[in-house]
């Protein structure tokens, strides 16, 4: 988080008073610090996406093709016919405003176009004019506007100021999901080659190498081996992590940040400790070396293209079922899209825990189990020897990641695990957790450095609740089950609540797990001394 100048007190002075002039005349100021860089042409070319060009969002000339409006209208028509969600959400909003102050970007910026309802209206206004009779007849009076370049700029700016977190959708009386509208908006922009680097570069990486970081198979193996060595040093136990091996029961897929990012890395050590201790018969794959899927932030088509490798690899390796690591958006794709897009996974079996015999009926069709479901089941059946006091140096609270909370309902599983592996756990206020959880402010591909002001603004509600916990409960750790969180919460907290660290749930599992034959543990997986062993 390099050169961010504004102090928290200044950034926290937010004006919620909308301007006097209405929003119907398009106007947008694409301001430094609040947008992400444009996609580089090579990545679009590699993925066969239309209109690659050298381009930045604040350029005066967006190099649009002459028939760009037709392209957009045709794109809208197709999507209206393919997605009932889109059509309904275009038609039924009553502008009650219930969603208005539910969006973290509105709360953090005060920009009225960041109210979910208005974000949607940016697109809806064009829909009304060109796709409804009333809009054709009544025009501006009922909120219909003509599509022009400035409108297109508004779309770009505000559809990349939505993290597709779906908090608004929880509060809307008709369940209008602005994330869905943002997804459509981004797909339309893609048709003109308007996307962002932080999405398209990972996409082309992942398409080629199997992971968003572009790590090639040998690099993947290196980093896994490095983690294995490190774990041996910390615990005295040599674990074995098979890669691309056939004949195992389970394929383990996790976001690539887990083996390259920090603090993700400690979570990875946690998984490996756990799998070793229970003797799990599994393999990882370099081809499916990322469960994360930035396709979700780009288009349904890219999502499907990237996601396909998971089932393909499970079939090739001949496993029985798939286990998935800690990640938010990855799990939205796995839970809500994978089976529909790339299933049916007939070649797999209904997941069954080899240790407890539990059959995961809830994954009977998809055949993929979330790691916290798996671990919670192990703990419930007393299969793990845990020493929660090894986490006594942490006083933690838990951040529900948007997608597990609002697209899966995965709420109690991580909490059950946490309560069993540590002694000091405290919940944040109820308006900020579970289905009402606040986004980290950097989801859906917006976690870039150049977008830092917007990220800090969007993360304010989350950070603020953490601050409250720090002040009242002396919390020093924010737990989460999401790779994007682990990457973006640390700079967020450093800015708004210095002194609170971020960790994955399985890092604490790894700390607490008493392993057979381990050496005397006087540090945690981070190498920090345990309480009483300083």
């Amino acid at each position: 988080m390099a050169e961010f100048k504004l102090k928290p007190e200044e950034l926290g002075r937010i004006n919620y008073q909308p301007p006097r002039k209405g929003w119907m005349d398009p106007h947008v100021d694409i301001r430094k610090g609040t947008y992400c860089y444009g996609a580089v042409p090579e990545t679009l070319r590699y993925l066969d996406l239309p209109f690659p060009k050298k381009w930045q969002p604040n350029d005066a000339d967006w190099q649009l093709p002459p028939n760009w409006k037709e392209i957009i209208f045709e794109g809208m028509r197709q999507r209206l016919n393919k997605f009932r969600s889109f059509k309904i959400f275009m038609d039924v909003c009553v502008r009650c405003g219930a969603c208005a102050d539910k969006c973290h970007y509105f709360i953090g910026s005060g920009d009225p176009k960041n109210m979910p309802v208005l974000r949607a209206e940016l697109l809806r206004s064009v829909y009304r004019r060109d796709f409804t009779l009333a809009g054709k007849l009544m025009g501006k009076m009922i909120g219909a506007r003509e599509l022009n370049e400035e409108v297109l700029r508004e779309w770009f700016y505000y559809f990349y100021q939505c993290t597709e977190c779906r908090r608004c959708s929880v509060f809307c009386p008709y369940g209008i999901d602005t994330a869905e509208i943002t997804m459509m908006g981004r797909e339309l922009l893609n048709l003109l080659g308007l996307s962002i680097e932080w999405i398209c570069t990972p996409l082309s990486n992942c398409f080629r190498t199997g992971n968003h970081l572009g790590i090639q198979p040998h690099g993947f193996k290196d980093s896994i081996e490095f983690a294995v060595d490190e774990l041996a040093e910390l615990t005295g136990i040599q674990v074995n992590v098979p890669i691309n091996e056939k004949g195992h029961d389970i394929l383990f897929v996790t976001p690539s940040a887990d083996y390259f990012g920090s603090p993700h890395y400690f979570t990875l050590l946690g998984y490996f400790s756990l799998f070793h201790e229970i003797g799990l018969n599994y393999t990882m794959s370099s081809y499916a070396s990322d469960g994360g899927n930035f396709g979700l932030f780009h288009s349904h088509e890219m999502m499907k293209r990237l996601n396909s490798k998971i089932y393909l690899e499970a079939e090739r390796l001949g496993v029985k079922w798939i286990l998935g690591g800690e990640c938010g958006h990855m799990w939205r794709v796995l839970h809500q899209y994978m089976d529909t897009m790339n299933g049916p996974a007939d070649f797999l079996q209904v997941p069954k825990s080899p240790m407890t015999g539990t059959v995961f009926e809830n994954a009977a069709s998809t055949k993929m189990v979330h790691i916290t479901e798996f671990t919670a089941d192990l703990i419930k059946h007393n299969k793990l020897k845990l020493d929660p006091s090894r986490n006594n140096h942490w006083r933690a609270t838990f951040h529900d990641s948007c997608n597990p909370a609002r697209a899966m309902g995965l709420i109690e599983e991580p909490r059950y695990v946490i309560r069993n592996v540590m002694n000091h756990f405290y919940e944040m206020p109820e308006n900020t957790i579970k289905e009402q959880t606040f986004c980290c402010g950097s989801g859906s591909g917006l976690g870039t450095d150049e977008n830092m002001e917007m990220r800090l603004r969007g993360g304010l509600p989350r950070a603020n609740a953490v601050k409250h916990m720090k002040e009242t409960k002396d919390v020093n750790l924010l737990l989460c089950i999401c790779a994007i969180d682990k990457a973006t919460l640390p700079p967020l907290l450093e800015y708004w609540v210095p002194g609170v660290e971020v960790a994955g749930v399985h890092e604490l599992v790894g700390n607490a797990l008493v392993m057979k034959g381990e050496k005397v543990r006087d540090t945690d997986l981070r190498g920090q001394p345990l309480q009483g062993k300083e």
Partner: protein
Amino acid sequence: MISLWFSIIVVVILILIPTIGSSSAALQSLFGIVIPYAAIITFLAGFVYRVLNWAKSPVPFRITTTCGQQKSLPWIKNSKLEAPHNAWGVVRRMALEIFFFRSLFRNTKVELRDGPRLVYGSSKWLWAAGLAFHYSFLVIFIRHFKYFVEPIPGWVSLVQSLDAFFQIGLPVIFLTDAVILASVGYLFFRRLCDDKIRYISHAADYFPLLLILSIATTGILMRYFFKVDIVNVKQLGTGLLSFNPHLPQGIGPLFYVHLFLVCTLIAYFPFSKLMHLGGVFLSPTRNLANNNRMKRHQNVWNFPVKMHTYDEYEEEFHKVMKAADIPLDKE
């Protein structure tokens, strides 16, 4: 603000048209018979068209918004209403949504204090007013059956007598008359006075509120102040419903204003946001079960995409994989 004035002017014009028009006996059949039929036909055709049009678009993915605990391990309590995993759960979730406005009930209001410190307060007025408005509208709608059928069905009379429960005033005041004025009034002033809501409002948001307010007001005026000959009104109503329309004499202009505004509302309905009445049933974030991993959801337009297969991958990275001792399919 132009949109507000525009709506007011339109409503005033809508009031003036029948006020002036209905004084001519010739035009009375237009206002009393032709327009009501036309409005009903527009409503039915428009409503059906809109719903069919929505239904025509498939639901490619199951994008439920979960607002509670999923069904996973048997010992973790599943929130059957907020994250239903089967059809029965969905029906109950939808019922809560439709009859009690469940989601609106969650509403909170955020406040920024110094620090910065964010505080979330409960904010139920919108929910209360919305619910009060919709239910009083429903009761008034039911009460009006008495103008269309003879004998009046028992349950209609029951609703009416419940509505007149307090037995105050002469004629007895209906609760819903007061409630609808208060709730629609609240919704209207909220739209005007809350800067954020005013900012997002179009004429299409003010207009229906003003229209309903005018309908309620003319109705109330007729009941309590300027009496209208009920027998005649009923003759007209039963005639219309039995497709044997007949226009009694001596119904005052106030009645025609009321009727004309109602017709406007009915005809306007399918082309406006009022269609949320139909849309709420079809919203995919609410009407689908959160059983994604249990049961496969079919996408009717699922299509093949360009994939990067393992074979292509191994071919590209064959050398480095071999060097790193990673198992290969083709040696």
